């Protein structure tokens, strides 16, 4: 077997050193009645060639953004990833290493995390970032748990325009705990209304832009939350918006969490992605996840280490701020490289391009006679109302090679036959024109 270096002679000689007659004897501590006496019922071993052929066949059965005009987002976004990202994360030193517990032999990973933390602070307008959480949904749940610890109250006010999957995960995470969850209603313009907040409220959680693509007015929500001593949590599912919209931290958010998949991580059927969480320095002891800090070595030279680990499970055990251990390190590396490549001007330009494409699409859809139900400004995603069952329109578009968006029928039935449409820099004008034609129901 190609992955196993042992020759029969090796095994024999090693057994002799160990003092065992055969390999089976190594397992004598396992009571005989529990020893498996039959081969596992999994397929026989395959060569690389066969594995590749099989998986290519399975891969070929999935629609993907490389081969379609793509307008489906809803928390997972199709952006172009420069080739340097994959080339660099394919360095074995990055992807075949472990969590940087031993800093002297892990400075590469550590410095990159420190750089990520710095950039994410700049983007979110806060002072400290952790070294990733699983995904946007669990990062949002962790943010709420953190807010509950910080505020020591038991009411959580959640925007009704939060991504339904984020809400689902949050409910799962909170199920065992003693808390009360209230939903903030959506205004006619698509934005969250700052009602239901009171002195019991630990935190107000809004998505920015929200699930329907609308840009929330964070200062208003922050004022409402802070008035009652609650924390404002901004959950960002499209991290690219951070390059264009006022930094949530500067708009009053106390915690910013979310999903940074847009920064160079492939959609990958939903994962692995990149959860993040930033806060003010004053709350750092309640932050979940790893942190990298700067220090000096024995010669007085600058270096980086994992730090403040007394928050973490391997030190604090049941009193830790979270149970997370393995995180999304390599996705963080992708995002760090993506951000370094784009930089200050490139990321802004990319975000502006997304805005321009989406605005063009909105104009085209309006011109095609379709209604856009929400008046609030949007970034690269918005809702459009159809004149026919959403599934029918989607199927027609798909038949023409266009993945037109997400039917909201299941998620927001009150909107009728509506689609959530995401338009990124990858959509050409011609594709957008085609989308408008297809959704208008005219012949393509």
């Amino acid at each position, binding site marked *: 077997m190609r992955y196993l270096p042992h020759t029969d002679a090796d095994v024999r000689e090693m057994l002799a050193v160990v003092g065992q007659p055969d390999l089976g004897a190594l397992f004598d501590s396992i009571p005989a009645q529990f020893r498996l006496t039959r081969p596992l019922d999994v397929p026989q071993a395959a060569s690389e060639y066969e594995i590749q052929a099989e998986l290519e066949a399975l891969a070929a059965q999935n629609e993907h953004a490389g081969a379609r005009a793509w307008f489906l987002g809803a928390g997972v976004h199709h952006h172009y990833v420069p080739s340097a990202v994959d080339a660099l994360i394919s360095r074995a030193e990055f992807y075949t290493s472990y969590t940087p517990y031993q800093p002297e032999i892990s400075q*590469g990973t550590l410095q990159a995390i420190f750089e990520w933390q710095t950039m994410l602070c700049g983007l979110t307008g806060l002072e400290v970032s952790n070294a990733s959480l699983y995904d946007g949904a669990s990062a949002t749940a962790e943010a709420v748990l953190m807010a509950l610890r910080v505020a020591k109250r038991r009411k959580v006010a959640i925007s009704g325009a939060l991504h339904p999957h984020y809400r689902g995960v949050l409910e799962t995470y909170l199920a065992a705990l003693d808390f009360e969850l209230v939903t903030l209603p959506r205004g006619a313009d698509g934005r969250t209304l700052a009602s239901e907040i009171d002195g019991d409220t630990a935190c107000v959680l809004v998505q920015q832009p929200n699930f329907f693509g609308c840009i929330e007015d964070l200062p208003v929500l922050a004022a409402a939350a802070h008035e009652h001593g609650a924390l404002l949590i901004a959950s960002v599912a499209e991290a690219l918006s951070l390059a264009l919209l006022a930094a949530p931290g500067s708009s009053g958010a106390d915690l910013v969490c979310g999903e940074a998949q847009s920064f160079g991580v492939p959609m990958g059927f939903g994962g692995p992605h990149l959860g993040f969480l930033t806060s003010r320095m004053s709350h750092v002891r309640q932050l979940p996840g790893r942190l990298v800090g700067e220090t000096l070595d024995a010669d007085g030279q600058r270096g980086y280490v994992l730090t403040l680990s007394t928050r973490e499970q391997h030190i604090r055990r049941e009193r830790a701020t979270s149970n997370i251990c393995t995180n999304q*390190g390599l996705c963080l590396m992708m995002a760090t490289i993506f951000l370094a490549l784009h930089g*200050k001007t490139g990321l802004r330009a990319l975000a502006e391009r997304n805005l321009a494409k989406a605005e063009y699409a909105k104009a085209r859809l309006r011109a095609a006679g379709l209604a856009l139900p929400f008046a609030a400004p949007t970034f690269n995603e918005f809702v459009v109302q159809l004149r026919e069952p959403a599934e029918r329109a989607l199927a027609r578009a798909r038949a023409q090679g266009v993945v037109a968006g997400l039917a909201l029928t299941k998620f927001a039935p009150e909107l009728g036959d509506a689609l959530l449409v995401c338009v990124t820099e990858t959509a050409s004008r011609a594709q957008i024109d085609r989308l408008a034609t297809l959704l208008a129901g005219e012949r393509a």
Partner: protein
Amino acid sequence: MSGNATRGFSYEEDLLFERSRAGRCGVDLPRNDVPEVDARALLGALARDEIAGLPELSEVDVVRHFTRLSTWNAAVDLGLYPLGSCTMKYNPKINERVARLPGFAHAHPLSPAEETQGLLALFFELERWLAEISGMERVTLQPAAGAQGELAGIMMIRAYHAQRGEPRSRVLVPDSAHGTNPASAALNGYQVVTVPSGDDGILHPKAVAEAMSDDVAGLMITNPNTLGIFETHLAEICDVVHARGGLVYGDGANLNALVGVARPGDLGIDVMHFNLHKTFSTPHGGGGPGAGPVGVKAALAPYLPTPVVERASDGSYRWQHELPHSIGRLHGHHGNVGMLVRAHAFIRALGPDGLKRATELAVLNANYLLARLRGAFHVPYANPVLHECVLTDRTLAGTGVSTLDVAKRLIDHGYHPPTVYFPLIVNGALMIEPTESESREGLDRFADALLAIAVEAHQDPETVRSAPHSTRRRRLDETRAARKPVLRWQPGGA
């Protein structure tokens, strides 16, 4: 040195921000084919100013930066990486290739099932295989890592008791357990009760029975445990827990000791997680991503997270969202799918015989190292070990050299150190897990290095205590880092 490492140099490299020069950019956008939009005009105060904290660099700057950074890391592809409990086995290159196939890498989780049949089929197969390997009934692939798997498992246990109308408030965790175990239980609102291991390093039915009560939802157990020792009394322990209505959670981090040889499900485990990034060869990525599927016995199947994959009678696959008793959704989408693809490829590569052989060799390797190192280092427990072994620095008493020093000195020999000071029940633990990927002569070189350090500790302790000497950075001051945390770069230092 051991013949593994020798003289060399490192490249220096400043932080991205220090390398930044206004006006550089490492990307160019496509030509714009739609009207420009003035963001300020459109969004007003909703728009932001300049993005503080982002650097400006050309593509070549960025490539060199990260290439240089990479050279400061140890890696499985560079050599033995014997972190105990982490199963740093070889990450096959075919896994990386197939995970990048466009039909996997660029698929969208909200595409309808009819348009993603290949992925659903892969999920379905992998679930079956993991169930068979573990002796479980069903498996969810959603958890993003072992700890999230634990969370899911404990949630299911909670839901099970709730459904039976008898919520409970405690979870038993052995003192040798990994930190995620108590943390996961606590995150679920459970009170954690620590159960002491016996003098032989394993758990005894008596200790469990003493802690067990009708208020105990279950026990979390790692088997083989974090000492690498098989929990010989596990069946009896499970009986104790089950007898009082509790359930047994299996931490599958050490499954690499059992695949093809014994199945946790057969041993009495009711629910367990798999670390695909350990047993099933997906890379650790410098900290993640991993994947932590959870297998359950039939009694817990109703509580699985949604959605689950089902095969219809026509052979097509679909998502089942309607599980009335489900704990709900754990991940924004379907989990760390890229890792599932890799694990699928790994199981296909090994097949039934290869999986078993890998287990046998992993165990052989750990036992071989133990045999070679016994004496020079203290072996705290006499029990036979499986895939990893724990040693201590007690043989170095009086030299002033501790486990940490031995670990750092190994770096000078070109080795990543083992896990140190874990499990907590062992003083000065060196926890060594070679995995099946290491050849006999590679183990010999590593053992020689450790033996040389043991000698050096007596002859020249100062050299060991001040190690490493050959790395770009010498020993780093972790206390300083924690005392006045500097967690991001700021212009001018601050």
